[in-house]
């Protein structure tokens, strides 16, 4: 007689158990293994922000897709026509991603505008759109401190995690927790002051797990310009670019594997002392 299986245990039955390829021993991971000469080609990256100016030299005319989400009288509206950047912030993030992963496919998901109300809903809709439309990495250099969105965003972050969509989120710039950057399911990033775009640090005291350049960095802005600025917003896209490069070389990685790889690549994670 076959014993009944408890709920959720089917994937581990003899007929359904999948064999997966193991990673190299994690302590041996190097940038050469992680991305080598990879450029992020074919990896879909959503920049959930204020829009991306495709014509900016830092973007090089290549934005693969657009969606601008707004709250209309009858609910949320999705406009997939090409759009501009309302403020410059999204172009700044996309420019960093493009510099790190030059051949990744950038999708501009515009959720920031001049409106002050309904932004939480639009923001959540942006993440949902990205997850449902097969984005592999999402750059979230924004968040909300509104408790009302805690659960909605937590659920969305979990669904992204289980679909292997990497949500790379900037920590808040002021000492208030912002969502979704404080969730365990996302890759949360804050700024360090060094300029090497590939220099990562790991923080053993989360919720912010990784550090990347974000202090006095030169970034693209509106109308073809550049600004030198500071913020965790600009640290996150460095990690987004690195994640895109890694995914280009190692498709199908899970979020927890990606975190393990980023941890192994962090400059403050050193080999064991014999």
């Amino acid at each position: 007689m076959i014993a009944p299986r408890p709920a959720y245990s089917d994937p581990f039955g003899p007929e359904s158990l999948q064999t997966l390829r193991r990673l190299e021993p994690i302590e041996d991971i190097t940038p050469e293994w992680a991305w080598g000469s990879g450029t992020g080609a074919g990896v879909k990256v959503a920049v959930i922000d204020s829009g991306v100016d495709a014509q900016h030299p830092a973007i090089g005319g290549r934005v693969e897709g657009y969606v601008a989400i707004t709250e209309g009288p009858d609910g949320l509206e999705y406009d997939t026509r090409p759009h501009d950047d309302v403020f410059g912030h999204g172009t700044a993030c996309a420019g960093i991603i493009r510099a790190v992963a030059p051949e990744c496919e950038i999708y501009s998901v515009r959720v920031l505008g001049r409106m002050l109300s309904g932004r939480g809903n639009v923001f959540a809709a942006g993440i949902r759109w990205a997850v449902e439309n097969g984005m592999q990495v999402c750059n979230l250099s924004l968040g909300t401190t509104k408790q009302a969105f805690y659960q909605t965003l937590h659920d969305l972050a979990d669904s992204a995690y289980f679909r292997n969509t990497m949500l790379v989120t900037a920590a808040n710039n002021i000492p208030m927790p912002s969502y979704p950057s404080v969730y365990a399911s996302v890759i949360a990033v804050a700024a360090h002051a060094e300029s090497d775009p590939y220099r990562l640090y790991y923080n053993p005291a989360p919720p912010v797990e990784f550090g990347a350049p974000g202090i006095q960095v030169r970034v693209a802005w509106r109308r073809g310009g550049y600004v030198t600025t500071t913020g965790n917003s600009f640290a996150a896209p460095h990690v987004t670019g690195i994640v895109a490069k890694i995914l280009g070389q190692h498709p199908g990685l899970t979020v927890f594997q990606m975190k393990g790889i980023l941890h192994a690549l962090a400059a403050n994670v050193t080999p064991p002392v014999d």
Partner: protein
Amino acid sequence: MPTTDDALTEARRTIEWQEQEIERLRSRGAENRISEDLRHALSLASLTATIAAPSEHGRLLQSIVETAARVIPSDAASLFLIDSTTEELIFEIALGQKAEEVKSFRVPLGHGIAGLVAVSGQPMTVSDVEHDPRHASDVSQQIGYTPHSILCCPLVYNDEVIGVLELLDRKGAPAYSPEDIETLWYFANQAAIALELSRTSRSLSRLITAAMQATSSRLDESGMSGALRFVENLEEDRVYRRALELADLVREIAWRGEDELLLCEGVLRDFIRYLTSRVDPGSTGEHA
């Protein structure tokens, strides 16, 4: 735009009006139910006066901006509020050489550093303002002052951006540091609480006015003595005095921050729930 003087005038007007109403009530008498209404209205008045006197908040805001500009040495500072109807920022406080010129300006949301901070809810520093495309050069030109460096922080209350606090031209350094951002955020937080308490006070003043108007309109000429006695004995009223003492304690907690106030409210509510659910020691029941 309300200033410290406006707030003082408004507070004085409210107090005068309340005194007149009390005098009117005293002369006409009241019934017990009206006495209760009055007690409630006056309790609210005393609470708001203790927790959130508008005149105090006007001065407090000014002092927050001044202290911020002293702690993070800066040539000028401004505090803007969001006018959500016109989607503009309006100046509430301005310090520095061009303070008077600045006060008449309204800045569209999303325009300039302050406008960007208002819509993004994130602080921003700029070190070379003149060449930075984010800067509102039109406003600078009209005022005749272009700062070299800017630090701008949102005023966030109850998860909403209600304004921004901006420092201009860091003294002793070419730019504002990440530490300056965090320091200014604490000042912005204090300013946001002061502003919101001030607004609450104004809206409660209106509420009290309405309550008192409703109360007085229900009075008849028969001369009920409840309100009269209440007003006469107000100073000696033990409950009233205890209420004031409690309000004073709550005020102290409220100034520590919104979280602390929420915690205080939660503790009090839980204690009330506990008290109401507690079995009366005199009652009897089955032992399980």
